[in-house]
C-alpha cells in the first residue's frame, strides 16, 4: 500500500506548508483566541448584567452563533466584512478586505460566543458573597469585576478556555471554503498541483493530530497542577 507513495513531495513542500500555511493557522488561532476571550468576557458580563437590553442582546448573540454552522458564518462574514468596513470608514464603496482580516473577524466573533459561555460559567462559579463583600466595602462594579471576580473566574476556566482553543485550532481548517492558504489549504494546493492527494492529506492529518494531542495532554497536566494549588 505504501509502495507507490511519494514521500518526497512532503519533504519538498515542507517550507511552504509550515512557513506559509502553519504560520497562518497559528497566527489566526492565537489572535482569534486573544480577542475572542476579551469580547467573550464582555458578552458574559453583559449577559449577567441586570440591564435587560444588554443581557437580551448578549443572549441573542450567543444563541445565534451557537445555532448556525461555522461554514455558513465564514461565508456570511466573507461577504459582510467589506460592507462593515465601508460603514466604519465611511468609504463610498465596500472596501477590499484581505483573507486574513476576514477570517480573523469571523473566528473572533464566532468563538467569542463560546468563550462567553465559558466565562459566564466561570463568573457564576465565584461565590456570590465575594461580590457582596466587595460592594459592602464600597467598591464600584468595574473594580469588583476586574479585581475580585474576573481574575478568579479566568483562572478557574483556564483549562476549559485552552480546550476551546484546541477546537478553534482545528476549526480554522474550515477557511478552506474561502480558498485561504492555511495549513490545510497549503497541503491541498500542493496535493492538487502534484496529484498527490493521498500523501498530502495523510500528512496534514498526522500534523493536526500530533499538535492537538500534545496540546490536550498539556492542558490535562496544567489542570492537575492548578488543582493542587487550589
Amino acid at each position, binding site marked *: *500500500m505504501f509502495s507507490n507513495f511519494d514521500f518526497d513531495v512532503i519533504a519538498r513542500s515542507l517550507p511552504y506548508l509550515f512557513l506559509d500555511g502553519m504560520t497562518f493557522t497559528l497566527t489566526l488561532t492565537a489572535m482569534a483566541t486573544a480577542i475572542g476571550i476579551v469580547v467573550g468576557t464582555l458578552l458574559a458580563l453583559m449577559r449577567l448584567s441586570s440591564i435587560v437590553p444588554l443581557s437580551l442582546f448578549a443572549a441573542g448573540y450567543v444563541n*445565534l452563533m451557537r*445555532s*448556525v*454552522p*461555522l*461554514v*455558513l458564518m465564514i*461565508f*456570511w462574514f466573507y*461577504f*459582510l466584512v467589506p*460592507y462593515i468596513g*465601508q*460603514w466604519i470608514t465611511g468609504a463610498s*464603496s*465596500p472596501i477590499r478586505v484581505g483573507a486574513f482580516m476576514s477570517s480573523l473577524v469571523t473566528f473572533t466573533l464566532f468563538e467569542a460566543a463560546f468563550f462567553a459561555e465559558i466565562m459566564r460559567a466561570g463568573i457564576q462559579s465565584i461565590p456570590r458573597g465575594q461580590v457582596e463583600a466587595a460592594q459592602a466595602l464600597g467598591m464600584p462594579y468595574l473594580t469588583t469585576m476586574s479585581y475580585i471576580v474576573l481574575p478568579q473566574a479566568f483562572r478557574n476556566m483556564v483549562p476549559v478556555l485552552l480546550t476551546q482553543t484546541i477546537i478553534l485550532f*482545528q*476549526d480554522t*481548517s*474550515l477557511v*478552506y*471554503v474561502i480558498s485561504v492558504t492555511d495549513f*490545510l489549504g497549503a497541503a*491541498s494546493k500542493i496535493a492538487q498541483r502534484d496529484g498527490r*492527494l*493521498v500523501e498530502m*492529506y*495523510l500528512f*496534514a*492529518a498526522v500534523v*493536526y*493530530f500530533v499538535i*492537538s*494531542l500534545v496540546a*490536550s495532554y498539556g492542558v490535562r497536566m496544567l489542570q492537575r497542577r492548578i488543582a493542587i494549588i487550589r
Partner: protein
Amino acid sequence: MNYNWNWSIFWQVSPDGAHTYFQTLLLGTGWTLATAFSAWIIALIVGSLVGVMRTMPFPWLTRLANVYIELFRNIPLLVQMFLWYFVLPEVVPQAVGIWLKQLPNASFYTAVVALGFYTSARVAEQVRAGITSLSRGQRYAGLALGLTLPQTYRYVLLPMAYRIILPPLTSEFLNIIKNSSVALTIGLLELTARARAMQEFSFQVFEAFTVATIIYIVINIIITAAMRQVERGVAVPGYLGAQPTRRVRWRLRHV
C-alpha cells in the same frame, strides 16, 4: 450600505430550470437532515460501543477505546472528510477503490460515514461519563444478584446512563446538523452549499444567507423542543432531570 435587497429572488427559477431558489434551499435542507440523521445512527451505535468499552473491567479494551477516541477527536472534521473521500479509495484494493469512486451519491455516503465516526468519539465520551457518574454500587449490586456483565449493562447501568446523558446527546445531535455543512467541501449539496450556489448565480448574497440562517435556527428550535419532550417522557420520577409529563405521571399512579 449600497446593497440592493431583492427578496422576490426566492420565487425566481434557479439555473437548474425546474425549481425556484426557495425550493433549492428546501432541497438542501432535506439533504442536511438526511445526512445528519443517517450519521447520527452510526454515531450512536459506534459511540455507545466504544463508550461501554471504556468502562469495562479489561485494561486492553479501555486502551483500545481511548486510542479510538483520541484519533477521531484530534483530527479536524474537514481533514477526516478528505481522508474518507480522497484517500480511502486509493489505499484499499483497486477493485474496491473503483467501486467506491463510482458509487452514485458518493459524497452523501462519505459525509454520513465521516460525520458518523467523527461524532461517535464524542458520543463515546458522553456514554462513558454517564456510566461512570452512576455509583459503583449499582454495578456491584447487579453482579452480586447473579446478572452477567452484559446483563448488568443492559438492565442496570445503561438505562440510567442514557437518561443522564440525554441533554448532552441533544447538543451533540444539534452539532451533527451544523457539522453536516462541512460536507459541501466534498460536493454534497446540503443547505449551506445551496445558499452558496444561490449567491453565486443570483448575486443576492445576504438574502440567501439570511434564509439559510433562519432555517438552521428553526431546525434547532424544533429539535430542542422535541428532545425536551423526550427527556420528560423517559424521566424516572424522583430521580433527576426533567419532570415526567402528566400522562406518564397518571400512568405511574395507576400501575
